[in-house]
């Protein structure tokens, strides 16, 4: 279920109409107007980037880096080939927003990428799509054909001298390929493993050429910003947190799904939109930004507004906007065991702390969950985590550690109970 509240990405989309994703419908609701405006009015690259900066749009993939700033890093006068890459390798547990964009409004993404290519002087783009989603990949390819046939994409777009080729690329489903440099490696046909940075993709990206990589939702927000102006987009949200954001709400709520709401919306209101807690149970905790984000207990979460700054202040992160809601029936040890298993399974194995450490973390949590914990295990977990975090090539190491730290910060007593009594504090577990 996707709920459109005050939309940018899903503006005008009729989720009940199976043809709403198509080009005709998209154009009817104002699609490709931004591109036409740029071509017809000969809007300069600098003006587009200025508009992006004014919008205060922050990267929707998880890191929240200001998009306008990222676009300005691209060396526009670079003489060789440059690339634009969309990261649709949506693999963070709890996140399912990009999938909905691809299925319900693919042209917003395509238009956003074309505008990005124009703004940075890039002629070739790729959309790297997660390997485990098929409908989204096929839909995207169909949409590309439509855009090409209509002259929005390809050579001499809308009769101008601007050319932009865009290709879909279906990955193989590795979580690590969502890390932008691992994605580039995978796109090049190599094993998906992150590169050491620097150099950053802006100078050494796909095939060693300058490359800009943005998330699907980020690109899909671009047409609105160009059409309506950066200021209007910013005003949808709050300062430094411009626009709307898609939240993938899952867990113990009555109506899980994607909610596109203005940034800065109180969490309590978002919870209400989702129909409140399932079966009237009490809210226990929320992971506010995907599995890598530290968990926040109910009382802290209910004070938060859903934006980058507020969640960061509370000690977690907005991340990809995956809101995992847990009620009082959840055993936090079991929950952490599942999360730690994920990172152990998805570590690429390239660098030592993550390759060796994620398995260690998982095994210790697994032991605790199965009644074999030792009193020193909790300090061991924090110590091992401390030896992983900040010592790895990419952020997967940190992502594996943050759930451990978050759980032990807020729910240490539950872990101690497990170790001491070899049983769960939560009834039913």
């Amino acid at each position, binding site marked *: 279920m996707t709920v459109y509240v005050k939309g940018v990405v899903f503006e005008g989309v009729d989720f009940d109409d199976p043809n709403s994703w198509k080009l005709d419908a998209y154009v009817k609701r104002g699609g490709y107007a931004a591109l036409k405006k740029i071509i017809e009015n000969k809007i300069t690259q600098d003006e587009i980037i200025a508009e992006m900066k004014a919008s205060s749009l922050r990267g929707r993939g998880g890191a929240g880096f200001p998009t306008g700033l990222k676009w300005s890093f691209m060396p526009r006068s670079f003489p060789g080939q440059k690339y634009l890459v969309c990261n649709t390798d949506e693999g963070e547990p709890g996140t399912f927003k990009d999938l909905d964009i691809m299925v319900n409004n693919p042209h917003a993404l395509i238009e956003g990428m074309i505008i990005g290519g124009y703004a940075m002087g890039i002629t070739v783009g790729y959309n790297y799509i997660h390997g485990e989603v098929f409908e989204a990949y096929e839909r995207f390819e169909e949409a590309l054909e439509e855009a090409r046939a209509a002259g929005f994409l390809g050579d001499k777009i809308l009769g101008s001298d601007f050319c932009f080729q865009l290709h879909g690329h279906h990955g193989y489903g590795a979580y690590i390929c969502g890390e932008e440099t691992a994605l580039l490696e995978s796109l090049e046909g190599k094993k998906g493993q992150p590169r050491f940075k620097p150099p950053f993709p802006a100078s050494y990206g796909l095939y060693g050429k300058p490359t800009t990589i943005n998330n699907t939702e980020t690109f899909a927000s671009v047409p609105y910003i160009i059409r309506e102006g950066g200021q209007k987009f910013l005003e949808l949200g709050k300062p430094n947190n411009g626009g709307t954001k898609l939240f993938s709400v899952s867990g113990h709520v009555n109506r899980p799904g994607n909610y596109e709401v203005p940034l800065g919306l109180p969490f309590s209101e978002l919870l209400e939109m989702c129909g409140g807690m399932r079966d009237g149970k009490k809210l226990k905790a929320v992971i506010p930004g995907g599995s890598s984000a530290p968990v926040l207990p109910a009382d802290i979460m209910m004070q938060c507004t859903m934006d980058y700054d507020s969640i960061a202040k509370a000690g977690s992160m907005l991340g990809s906007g995956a809101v995992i809601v847990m009620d009082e029936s959840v055993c936090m040890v079991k929950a952490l065991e599942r999360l730690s298993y994920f990172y152990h399974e998805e570590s690429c*194995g390239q660098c*030592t702390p993550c390759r*060796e*450490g994620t398995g*260690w973390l998982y095994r210790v949590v697994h*032991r605790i969950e199965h009644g074999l914990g030792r009193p020193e295990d909790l300090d*061991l977990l924090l110590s091992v985590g401390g030896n992983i975090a900040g*010592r790895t*090539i990419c952020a997967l190491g940190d992502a594996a550690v943050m759930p451990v730290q978050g759980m032990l910060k807020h729910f240490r007593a539950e872990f101690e109970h497990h170790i001491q009594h070899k049983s769960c504090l939560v009834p039913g577990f």
Partner: protein
Amino acid sequence: MLEIEIDGKTLTVPGGSTVMDAANSVGVHIPHFCYHKKLSIAANCRMCLVQVEKAPKPLPACATPVTDGMKVYTHSDMAVKAQKGVMEFLLINHPLDCPICDQGGECNLQDLAVGYGQSGSRYQEEKRVVVNKDLGPLVSTDMTRCIHCSRCVRFTEEIAGFQELGMGGRGEFTEVLPFIGKTVNSEISGNIIDLCPVGALTSKPFRYSARTWELSRRKSVAAHDGLGSNLVVQVKDHKIKRVLPLENEAINECWLSDRDRFSYEALNSDERLTKPLIKQGGVWQEADWQTALEYVANGLKSVVADHGADSVAGVANQAATLEELFLFKKLLAGVGVHNVESRLRVTDPVATKGVQWLGQSIADLAQNNAVLVVGSTLRKDQPLIAQRLRQGVKRGLALSIVNSHGDDLLTKLAGEVVTRPDQLVEGVLAVLKAAVELKGATAPANIDLVGVEVTAAAKQVAESLIGKESTSVLLGNLAMQNARASELYAATAALAEVVGAKLGVLSDAANSVGAQLLGFQGAGNVFAQPKKAYVLLNAEADFDTANGAEAVAALEKAEMVVVMSPFQSCAFDYADVILPVSPFSETSGTFVNMEGLPQSFNGVVRPLGETRPAWKVFRVLGNLLGLENFHYNSSEEIRDEILAAGIDGKLDNAPAAAVTVKAQAASGLVRLAEVPAYQVDAITRRATSLQATADAQVAGQLRANAATLASLGVAAGDQVRVSQGGEALLVAVEDKKLADQVLRVPLASPATRNLGAGVITVTKA
């Protein structure tokens, strides 16, 4: 230049340096595993994490570029905590089997664990076990010990040119593996043993035969190609246990070819001779040295007296030392004999003004902007030259070849002309004509370019050579051993002149340049017209000559044959005296490598049994014959006498005379006779592990392209009977990159030792 402070020491380093480079330059040691100066930066082991001022996290020294004013702390609390954390992770799954690990005592992980590890482990879970891999007869695996530094993977890809190893699996299940069902077949594969920081990859021939601390380390020089790689020979109980490279950036860098690394096995083989032998009444008898040498002295004197000095010939392998060759020649000259030859596989000797050499230093070779190699199985004949050129190509060197086969050099080629072996001259002429046309120049008068067709491929090669600041044209073994070598040399020299390239010769053997310096040549093929007496030094007539069958036949007819060799061989059939002389490992001596550099070495082990260094044998023979000036006390004394006049002035690749070259047509079956990598000399041929490699298998193969095989009515995999003078049974193998009608039939192989010269035919066996 950038200024950086490391642990309080201020220094300036060039832009682009990493923190690791900077630390190395002031002798600050930063612990590391994956970093290696010759490999790309992986930054995956994380052992070199250091604290950098203003950086919130510790940074890997190997991958962090120096910025101006940077302050680095390699032993601060933050750095050491990070390093110890990484060490703990590396150890949790590493087996505690150091007492039975061949790497024990020379293991980076063991060494660093002393400084950064704990005495006990906090890891109480089960340890990982990884299945071993079959990497072939040279490299042994214990993959459970692997710490995933990826040095071996990067070596195969970046240095050896083909990624024969890769990282399979993910996360904790990551493991180094070869392609499924394949082994590591690179000719320089042994280097991954040196690169492996732990005991995951160790030497298979050396396995469990000694502990590192029991071994004496002695310097030596490699004896199997013209490079002169520097060696550390490791010895226990007067036996060579292992051979490793001695780093010399100007020659072998830190690498060693498998041939130079593993050939030592032959030096301990059962086939070694230990006593002088004399054949009396058709029966071989052991003799003492005095008796044997008197027999030789008297025999030589009487043959010369009876048949004249021209009835005797001295034959030596070019892998003999300078001192040995010098005394050998001097000894024969003392009895009036001047028939000496060391170019045993050459059928058409090339006359040059001076000694044929590389034409430049080895280090300069890869600095050229373009290099053309004519007639060489480069990767097998000159493994480390091929490696150097590969690195050059990465920096923009345009490498091209004119060759009789299209063996993959595992690098990018700017141009490639593949011809029949008897059309190699025409291949070079086509490039020359293209160059002449492109430059608007004229070819030298001795070269007739009329009727030479300029192919697109030839033009491409010519283009790659023109307009470059520095270029070289090199001739390899297949060129110098070609039946039309003189013409080929003249055409190649003309090409070098037209494009302004340096002309170079890739020496065949360890002391090819030295043999020429001494003039140990000129007799030509001494077996074509049988002599009455022969003295053979380290030369096995059936394998080390161009036509083994002819050589053996001549030796069988001779009245007296003296064989000086470390090994038993078929010399038992034709020799009268066999003298056990030291291989290079048991004598002091000097090799002059392809760049004209004399490198002296000492014996690393004492001579086996009653084996004696050949220079001492010649000295005693000289004394027995009453010759003057044979009172040398040391090999150094001999060397100093030889080198007193210097070498540099004698090196000159310019043709001695203008040889007339004219294109000819050729058709019909033709043999491409080349020496397989592990058949080059008596030592290599007896190195058992090398003989078990994939590369060694070509010694029993006939290779031809599909069309040729079809025209012979033979399929790949069939056994075939090859006739050329004698017969050979070989297995047919398809080689896609040969010209039509070319039969690649090895020389110097047990399978082909009965083959001679002339018309060749093939039938299905």
